């Protein structure tokens, strides 16, 4: 039944439906995940994809309405306290205790996990040193900058050496410099063997950090694997999109024989744009302009996306990935 050893995180058909007077909303519709110990796992998807709900269920603060999940071998529904003992959570919001100082935030968290006074204070000092917050130890937590608050949240999640570290959109709303800084911290933690599950809606964040990625949208996993596997399986193609000022008349792409070009796997026309998925992007953009002008269309803008998680998302959902 309950796997006591094995993956750090496992879910089976995990579901969450929110009931409301305006009808039910299925936020997560049957997710299967398996994250090995020591892995850096990324849950990638646009806002509203169900990432936070999933992380909420794994951290016991959201009750699943279907399926099962185990974290560090403990069932999140049957043994939430057992799970909470073994995880560290960096919430998306700033959930620092606003009534306490920086050091007290760490000390009391340590004491919640059973540490004695002296031990808690020693651990707080150590964490503040390592995370570069030692000079702010007496400041109220409300006085920290966004980046400092995030570092303190991470430090606080590590007081008790969690088996799994969860980070929900850790860099959302941070400036680029601070984001890179946090990435460095996470890389070091992972390098030391920390199992990490991170959610993000930044493609480049998942590419930069995660060994394994699950792309989710509308509460379902669309694809999972390493970043390279994902690119190879679905998106090793360049996606070229040209938008015109006018609607694209039917038959334009067929007459131009776009689909017959070498390397082209798919040609989409919808409304005012033509989109070509190809392994040989050379010259395609120019041709789309020519095809358009032959049909009396004026180009408004054009994009060419090299194979990336973004083209993976586009290929899987047919929708552009918007942040």
């Amino acid at each position: 039944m309950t796997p006591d050893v094995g993956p750090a995180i496992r879910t089976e058909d995990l579901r969450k439906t929110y009931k409301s007077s305006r009808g039910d909303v299925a936020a997560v519709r049957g997710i299967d995940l398996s994250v090995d110990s020591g892995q850096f796992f990324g849950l990638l998807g646009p806002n509203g994809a169900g990432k936070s709900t999933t992380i909420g269920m794994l951290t016991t603060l959201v009750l699943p309405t279907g399926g099962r999940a185990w974290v560090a071998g403990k069932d999140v529904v049957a043994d939430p306290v057992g799970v909470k003992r073994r995880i560290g959570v960096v919430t998306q919001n700033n959930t620092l205790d606003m009534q306490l100082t920086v050091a007290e935030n760490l000390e009391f968290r340590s004491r919640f996990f059973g540490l004695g006074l002296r031990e808690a204070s020693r651990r707080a000092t150590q964490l503040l040193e390592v995370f570069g917050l030692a000079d702010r130890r007496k400041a109220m937590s409300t006085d920290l900058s966004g980046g400092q608050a995030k570092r303190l949240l991470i430090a606080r999640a590590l007081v008790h050496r969690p088996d799994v570290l969860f980070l929900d959109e850790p860099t959302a709303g941070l400036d680029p410099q601070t984001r890179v800084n946090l990435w460095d911290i996470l890389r070091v933690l992972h390098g030391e063997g920390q199992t990490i599950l991170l959610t993000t809606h930044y493609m480049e964040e998942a590419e930069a950090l995660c060994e394994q990625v699950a792309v989710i949208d509308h509460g379902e996993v669309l694809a999972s694997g390493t970043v390279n596997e994902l690119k190879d399986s679905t998106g090793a193609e360049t996606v070229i999109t040209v938008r015109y000022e006018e609607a694209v008349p039917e038959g334009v792409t067929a007459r131009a024989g776009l689909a017959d070009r070498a390397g082209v796997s798919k040609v989409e026309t919808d409304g005012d744009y033509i989109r070509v998925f190809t392994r040989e992007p050379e010259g395609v953009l120019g041709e789309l302009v020519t095809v358009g002008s032959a049909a009396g269309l004026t180009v408004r803008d054009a994009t060419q996306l090299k194979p990336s998680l973004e083209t993976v998302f586009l290929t899987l959902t047919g929708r552009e990935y918007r942040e």
Partner: protein
Amino acid sequence: MTTTTKKAPPAAAEHPGVPSASEVAALIAEAPEPSPTLIKTFNAMMAREFRVLRRNAIATFTRAVMQPLLFVFVFAYVFPKIGGGFNLGAGAAASSGARAAGTINFATILVPGLMASMLLMQGIMAVTFPLVMEFSWQRTIEDRALAPVPIKVLAIQKITAGAVQSFIGACIVFPIVLLVHAAGQAPHVHVTNWGLFALILVFASLLTSSLGLLLGTIMDPRKMQMLFAVILLPATMLGCVYYPWSALHHIRWLQIVVLINPMVYMSEGLRAVLTPSLGHMPMWGVLLALVGGTVVFSYLGTRTFTRRVLN
């Protein structure tokens, strides 16, 4: 893509707060083995409340003391000084059937009433206000919700902490309402049973903080002002704070209607132990209501709290 900038500074200086691998290795290797137990975590949470209370003590208790202080000042000092026409207490006292009706002054009625009113205010301020903050905006409640205890333990801890704050508040107000009065207008306070007095205070404190928890979990944060108009004000004005319950027999329907107000039992319970010379509600009724109310509000509050935390 290259950028031409000044010589690259060392990584540590460039990114303050980025730990080195060896530092993190030490951090993980030296991490203490957590050994949380229900009691340890509960105590740590209480310690956190006391730390916060101590930090805000002056503001918290100044805010709490002003209302009862001004009340006794105006009614037990100013009014008796400016003339007998304002002697409000005599009528109520006489109609309450007190044996020594002639000697009962308004101060005597106010002592238990203002203490009860203080308890209610403290219960709400200590539990409801922080809770509404914790549930709104950043949902800082998640910080404590991730502590390794069941969510209902967190609810019970909030009730306990709120009750302690109420109790302290009442202890601060007691000497004030006792000592602030005009010459010859001292309240007739006579405590015969200190144990019972303490018991009433403890249960009244628990009642207000459990009510505070329930209100904090069902209140819409955007409608907090309504709390004063709809709950606090009627509970106080119709809570036998300024008149004994027995005196309400002139308005029989009101005497019955106010029985739904938990405040009545707090005022009357304190009246029974502090100023027994004044007519008061029977002790069994008071204790039943205080204990029963605490149980009911705690149960409902813990349920709504758990539902708000886990969604």
